[in-house]
């Protein structure tokens, strides 16, 4: 027993060491860098002073807050009625609408941005069509495009959280209000809505967080409209002598925001949630044909507008292209042939890196889950915070921190594929930890003790009893890790170097140079690789696609 305990202590130390080197130290490193004058090397508040002094930088902050707030409001405005209509009323094709309605949030946002560029950008399909009939549609570039893509891709978070809250309401709650003399509208505004408000807030907060940390969408369609993540990246990467202190300062500001949001979510919003056990869910109502049609039109319309761009990308991938000019209607497999034969490296890189990071992440996740659930105490509390910390760090910030820290000195990782794997597994491991530890929590520790009592030593008991019990969580977490790694752009773009460009980098660069055809081919491969595993997982586990994200 005592030996067994020591073994776990050694593992615990190793895990803390990994977390320190991969998460804490890099953040502290750029925190320190942000206070150093790049020319003299002395302590200085110059970067922060510059930030406050130049409207250019302040505008980035304002822009970030502006697009995030607006997108969040719109996502809430779409998500709430979407959730209510689907939960309360009989609508044709409801299950399909529900499934498709969750799809946007697993599809990479920068591919959404690409699609809208194909449709409404300069030389865009719709832009040309409308121009042809004499209508000038507003430009997609700048904040409008960013808000459009954010809203359409993130509203499902509000939808999912609100529907879960609606389903948790017992019939008797609204019946009690009716029995006390409240009319239908009064019941809705005095009982139903207040009860789901914490869920709305949670959803809104998640959406706001995802908007503010997003990199791909604003960098692709923001153009001169710069947000924090993009500006931090520009400062860091700039060929004309980047400014590490300024990149550090911008990263710190972004980090303060994301961290603040996460803490707010954890300690305030989560506590406000009402716990209810719904014995009798509320009946699904059948409305008269016209209202039913209008509700259906809204829900199906939202899903259509959200998914149509991805269909456009997939169509584009099999369309004849010449640079930025696309010949819609002319079928061609050239883009795929080129992707698979001439430039297959990004595909191989993506799959290799995602698989490697996932396998490491699974082992890491299983061990951490076990420590979190079974070895409770002050140490596991600290471990919980540290291991979940990457969820509160924007990909760009984490990328910059890792690249800056391991650029020179004792350990040099920048410019190797290892740093990509490190960033991926540490950023995605929380998904695996969530799924495995929630399963482990349901299993009493005595199950393991029963195995030991029956004559199987502790480590073998762990392998033969605990691992099989956690297996569904390990598989689910692994799939989520794998697909989100595959679609990761923000940290990759900072950390990759030449030969290790991934599909996401390739798509990003091709869009930048206007090569929509090849970009669409890689994007299609990415969409298929993301959707199929999640679809299978959904079928097998019977859970909502996004419930584990």
């Amino acid at each position, binding site marked *: *027993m*005592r030996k067994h305990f020591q073994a776990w202590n050694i593992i615990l130390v190793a895990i803390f060491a990994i977390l320190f080197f991969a998460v804490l130290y890099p953040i502290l490193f750029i925190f320190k860098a942000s206070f150093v004058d790049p020319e003299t090397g002395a302590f200085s508040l110059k970067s922060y002073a510059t930030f406050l002094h130049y409207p250019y930088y302040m505008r980035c902050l304002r822009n970030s807050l502006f697009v995030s707030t607006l997108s969040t409001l719109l996502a809430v405005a779409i998500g709430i009625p979407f959730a209510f209509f689907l939960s309360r009323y009989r609508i044709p094709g409801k299950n399909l609408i529900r499934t498709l309605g969750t799809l946007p949030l697993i599809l990479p946002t920068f591919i959404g941005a690409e699609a809208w560029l194909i449709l409404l950008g300069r030389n865009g399909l719709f832009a040309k069509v409308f121009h042809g009939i004499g209508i000038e549609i507003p430009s997609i570039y700048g904040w409008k495009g960013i808000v459009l893509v954010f809203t359409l891709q993130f509203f499902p978070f509000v939808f999912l959280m609100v529907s879960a809250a609606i389903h948790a309401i017992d019939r008797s709650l609204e019946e009690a209000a009716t029995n006390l003399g409240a009319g239908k509208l009064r019941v809705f505004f005095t009982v139903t809505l207040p009860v789901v408000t914490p869920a709305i807030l949670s959803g809104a907060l998640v959406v706001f967080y995802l908007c503010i940390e997003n990199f791909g969408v604003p960098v692709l369609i923001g153009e001169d409209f710069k947000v924090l993540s993009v500006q931090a990246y520009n400062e860091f990467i700039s060929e004309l002598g980047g400014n590490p202190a300024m990149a550090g300062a911008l990263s710190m500001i972004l980090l303060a925001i994301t961290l603040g949001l996460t803490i707010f979510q954890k300690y305030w919003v989560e506590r406000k949630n009402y716990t209810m056990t719904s014995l009798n869910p509320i009946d699904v109502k059948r409305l008269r044909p016209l209202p039913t049609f209008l509700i259906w039109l809204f829900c199906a319309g939202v899903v259509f507008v959200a998914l149509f761009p991805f269909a456009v990308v997939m169509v584009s991938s099999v369309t004849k292209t010449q640079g930025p000019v696309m010949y819609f209607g002319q079928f061609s497999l050239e883009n795929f042939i080129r992707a698979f034969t001439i430039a297959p490296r990004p595909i191989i890189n993506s799959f290799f890196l995602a698989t490697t990071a996932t396998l490491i992440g699974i082992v890491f996740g299983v061990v951490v889950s076990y420590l979190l659930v079974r070895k409770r105490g002050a140490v596991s509390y600290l471990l919980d915070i540290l291991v979940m910390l990457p969820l509160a760090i924007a990909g760009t910030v984490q990328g910059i921190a890792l690249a800056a820290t391991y650029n020179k000195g004792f350990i040099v990782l920048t410019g190797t594929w290892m740093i990509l794997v490190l960033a991926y597994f540490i950023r995605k491991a929380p998904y695996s930890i969530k799924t495995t530890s929630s399963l482990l929590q349901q*299993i*009493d520790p*005595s*199950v393991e*003790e*029963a*195995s*030991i*009592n*029956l*004559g*199987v*030593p*502790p480590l073998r*008991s762990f392998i033969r*009893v605990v691992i*099989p*019990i956690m*297996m569904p969580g390990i598989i689910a977490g692994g799939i989520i890790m794998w697909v989100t790694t595959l679609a990761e752009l923000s940290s990759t773009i900072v950390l990759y170097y030449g030969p290790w460009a991934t599909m996401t980098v390739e798509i990003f660069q091709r869009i930048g140079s206007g090569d929509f055809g090849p970009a669409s081919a890689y994007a299609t491969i990415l969409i298929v690789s993301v959707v199929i595993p999640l679809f299978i997982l959904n079928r097998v586990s019977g859970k909502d696609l996004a419930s584990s994200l």
Partner: protein
Amino acid sequence: MRVELTNITKLFGPLRAVDDVSLAIGEGDFFTLLGPSGCGKTTLLRTIAGFYNPDAGEIRFGERLINHIPAHRRETGMVFQNYALFPHLSVYDNIAYGLKARRIPKPEIAERIGKILESVQLAGLEKRSPSKLSGGQQQRVALARALVISPQILLMDEPLSNLDAKLRVSMREEIRRIQKKLGITTIYVTHDQEEAMAVSDRIAILNRGRLEQVGTPAEIYYRPESRFAAEFMGSSNIIEMDVTGWDGDQCRIVAETAGQKFSLRGEKPSGARIILSVRPEWIRVVAGQADGEANVLSGTVLSSTFLGSMIRYRVSGPGGTPIVIEVHDPNEGSIRKDGEIIRYRLPPDRPLVIRD
């Protein structure tokens, strides 16, 4: 297999969960650790199983010191409070688990499982998943899994606490039947005194990590040594008295309370006060008004509960605490009303004196 514990102490930080406990459990005994939650009974059982290391003391199975034998090599069979069935394995594989760990050949595994399923009346359910079983069936699987490895010692941690009241009674009888048939030394943990009395050869009462009393159910019931043991095992009236004398020839204590004289059986008291534990059914209601009769007290009926075969009175007592009296098979005419004065006699020949 005999089990011997010598001065076992187990600390959790500053808490002495088990405090200097010594016990000897005989071959084939059904031995129960009884006490309220937090008394250390489960900790002691888990220490015997090897899930905790004692901070002091020795554990012996037979002649063999097993302090340093890891849990998986102690050859005990354990039944857990929540059964701890492996959710990913069928009933058959759950039971086979310990046999496979011992590398028993397959045909023998099948044979032994067949036999044990027979004796716990689960034949035909081999392929089921544990989640598809009722609480009672899960309990039987847990028991079969622990017994099939032919352990030297069977450990049971509140095995019946998750079952409904009716099933608890039938299961405890079945556990006792199987235990007797196999003659296996069993250590059983429960907080339910009725359950403990029903199944045990001997009982150890634990309180705050310390041993209060060890004995057969009857010994503890009739001769509780401490106030805690008296009150935990059945219900009891605790009465304090002043000692006025001792008759060494007759082994009798002369005592006094509320102006009444008492003559009680007992050893020479060490102090000026003694404490009595009197079971409610040992007290007799006496007729008449006369005062001065030895061992007789009087009080007002505060409340009464009529239960058919028995009537239970709460009567004002000499020390201020009400005295509970149970009259079995009462005559309809003799039932007293609330507020009436009642006279009752404490038994002169039962051992009533306990240590504080």
